[in-house]
């Protein structure tokens, strides 16, 4: 990489201001999508979701499918080839056309999954997609203007984290029908971007020598992607806690009205939350290791208990605890959801609190 003097990059000023306009456009797009998602959450109809494309239960969750446990439910397996291959208790023997039709029986505990749905939600997903593209364009133009990786300061981190959270959310929405998370993911995204544009904004500029390393690309990228996924997990965990309260109230015979009544099923949220921790945790582990390698090159030690390192470690330990909690009797459900929320709080504190409250080698805020 070539690091030019600021004076020489004057020609790139055009690009830099272009990227500044994109920030506004992107925030507007996300805000509009947020509004539409909120409308869907409030006025949509609670609809059952198709069973085949729900979030898979992660490796840590013990299967509940003991023989004879629960009712057998239909899982719409991809491409069951012939109409005869239905599901029926212990399955009748095929005596059909070819004599070799599959007769399938599936027992499982697919949750009764439903969420508030409305056509506005589909539009909101599309608008989120537009916001995502604007976000991407913003990062690319800023990178080009500065002639470096566009994540060298707080402002740039926030923009990149938003991109990853939204990407993770879009993936969840398209792959797992999880667009019910839209409100909960876009709310922090819009807030963060607002804070970033208002208070953290810094001119496009060169990096200090400590950041001249390809490890910045590796370490920071991994941390940003993991943060994006943790954010979706955190959003799902918070929604889970709300939805779980609703369920509890229902179970006690109370009538639940309003948005609370339309929250998606808690089991579903629990799975989404776990799924994204499972994706993010190894990435976060890798980010910490890459950071240690970089610290080893730059500062002469791979681990030095700098506040940033400490909080990355704390975050990591809390998420490790989350994964354990899910394998520990009595800690599943709400308790592990709270641990997930705690992990997310630690992550955010690491991001904002540590940069502004403590002095350390990482304070490039």
């Amino acid at each position: 990489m070539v690091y030019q003097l600021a004076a020489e990059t004057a020609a790139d000023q055009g690009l830099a201001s272009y990227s500044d306009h994109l920030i506004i456009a992107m925030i507007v797009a996300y805000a509009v999508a947020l509004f539409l998602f909120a409308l869907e959450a409030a006025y949509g109809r609670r609809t059952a979701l198709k069973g085949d494309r729900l979030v898979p239960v992660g490796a840590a969750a013990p299967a509940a499918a003991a023989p004879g446990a629960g009712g057998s439910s239909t899982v719409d397996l991809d491409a069951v080839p012939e109409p005869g291959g239905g599901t029926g208790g212990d399955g009748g023997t095929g005596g059909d056309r070819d004599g070799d039709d599959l007769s399938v029986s599936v027992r499982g505990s697919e949750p009764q999954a439903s969420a508030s749905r409305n056509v506005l939600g589909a539009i909101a997903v599309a608008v989120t997609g537009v916001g995502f593209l604007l976000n991407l364009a913003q990062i690319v133009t800023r990178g080009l203007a500065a002639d470096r990786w566009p994540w060298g300061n707080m402002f740039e981190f926030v923009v990149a984290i938003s991109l990853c959270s939204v990407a993770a959310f879009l993936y969840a929405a398209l792959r797992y029908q999880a667009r019910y998370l839209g409100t909960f993911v876009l709310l922090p995204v819009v807030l963060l971007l607002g804070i970033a544009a208002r208070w953290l904004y810094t001119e496009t500029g060169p990096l200090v020598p400590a950041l001249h390393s390809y490890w910045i690309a590796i370490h920071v990228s991994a941390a940003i992607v993991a943060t994006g996924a943790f954010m979706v997990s955190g959003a799902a965990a918070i929604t889970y806690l709300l939805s779980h309260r609703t369920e509890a109230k229902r179970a006690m015979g109370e009538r639940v009205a309003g948005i609370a009544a339309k929250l998606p099923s808690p089991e579903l949220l629990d799975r989404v939350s776990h799924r994204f921790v499972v994706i993010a945790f190894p990435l976060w582990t890798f980010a910490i290791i890459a950071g240690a390698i970089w610290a080893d090159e730059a500062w002469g030690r791979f681990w030095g208990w700098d506040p940033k390192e400490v909080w990355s470690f704390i975050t990591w330990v809390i998420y490790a605890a989350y994964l354990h909690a899910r394998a520990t009797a009595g800690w599943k459900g709400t308790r592990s959801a709270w641990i997930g929320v705690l992990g997310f709080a630690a992550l955010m504190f690491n991001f904002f609190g540590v940069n502004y409250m403590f002095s350390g080698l990482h304070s490039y805020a």
Partner: protein
Amino acid sequence: MATTSTRKGGKKRTDGTGGPAAGDGADAAGGAGAPGGLSPLGWARWAWRILTSMRTALILLFLLALGAIPGSMLPQRVVSPDQVAQYYTDNPSLAPWLERFYLFDVYSSPWYAAIYLLLFVSLTGCVIPRALAHLRLVRARPPKTPRNLGRMPYSARFTTGAEPERVLEQGRSVFKRYRLERYGDSLSGEAGYLREAGNVIFHIALLGLLVSLAAGYAFGYRGNMLVVEGDGFANTLTSYDSFYPGVAADQDDLAPFSFTLDSFDAKFVEDGGFSGQAESFAGEMTYKDHPGGPERHHTLEVNKPLSVGGVQVYLLGHAYAPEFEVRDGEGEVVFDQPVPFLPRSEDPGKTADGVVKVPDALPEGLGFEGVFLPTAQERTGEDGEPELASVFPGAEDPAVTLTAYSGDLGMRQAQSVYQLDTSRMEELGESGTLRPGDTWELPDGAGEVTFTGYKDFATLQMTHNPGRLPALLSASLAVLGLLGTLFVRPRRAWVRASAGPDGRTVVEVAGLGKTESTANGQEFHRLATELRDRLREDPAADGPASSKE
């Protein structure tokens, strides 16, 4: 028996096949009550079970996170000893109390060590039995096919004209990713061993990481050193300005390398909003592994340490060493060398302070306190008077100002090279602004001093940490293990082929995921369908009833 919801209530699952269930065993002691009237051995066993339970691990993990917090709030000796000293000055009554709880050394404190050691004992006690159980499982044959496959979470059934033998033969190739075992009229298969292996590897790699860290701490050393452009350095204890050996480090046997800092170049952003921000530092160095070894070159930069003889040499900082030539009252040149001046920490212009000591000057020793300004400019100070300040960290227009003293420098006592003990000296006066080449004639014929130029100097850190590579290796293994444990699905599958009443063969395919996942059902179904399709197209399967197509 569990009901549909297993989220609450802590019911343990039974998967009916007797494999080591996730979290079983480890969980077993979770809620164990205290054993009444037990023998010492019984107590020990009970304590061990509690310690190695999942719940204890969970609590210890929380403590590990919680205990790390004060270390980020309070200054730590490992990170910034000066700030600890500052804290003592600012909070003289509180600081000793915090000290009692090791709150300035959290990460090397006995209580923090207790947490992580307990955690790792728990981990060992938890993982070793699991590893052994897994090993047995890997060596054992997949378990016998259950009688009623229809009760498995996934089961499919179809008939074919192929012979049972033929079905099982095809079954082998369809379920090729499973380890298969033949039991009578059926195949029993198991796959996804890597999940459990990954889990064991991950946890053991964490142990490896801890051991590597401990080894680095015990056997490593770290030292700081300041080297002026053109000067050399040999790796001996006495060459260091400060040296921090590990508790078990061998200080008499340091790696015998040496190097010279041939030149040093610092660049700063010149214009625009980022003016003055450091842009790049580069030191050219010539080094030798050992005396008499071949000379090599290295360009030292912030992210490019020199690696020599198991020691890493890092660039920590950079500043300037103005050069002075001093003649004493008798006209002799008694001093001619660069003197490192230390930059003031908060000053963006890198104004630096230093002292020049000339104890051998005649008739009386000379000493100077000086200020070095890399880019000196007159400006109006806060009091309205013009003052000289450095406006840029690069040496664009360097200047020094000196205050001269004469008398006894007190060199018989050990003293810092950055401080002048003026208690037995008399102030001679202050120089004006000196630019390179300027000479200041001292009053009273005490001599003269010439500011001849400046050199760059680098502050370096040498570290030797034998735990570096093992730590990296352990950490990498941990990530690999983690991927295995999080993404591999352990599962079992069965194929049974028996002759039906109508002469056709009845084929049953069943699957059981030890971890529930919709992906399991999909995989089993895909394989069952593939088996059926193969048999359909199989010429060898032209049995009695498949003549329709």
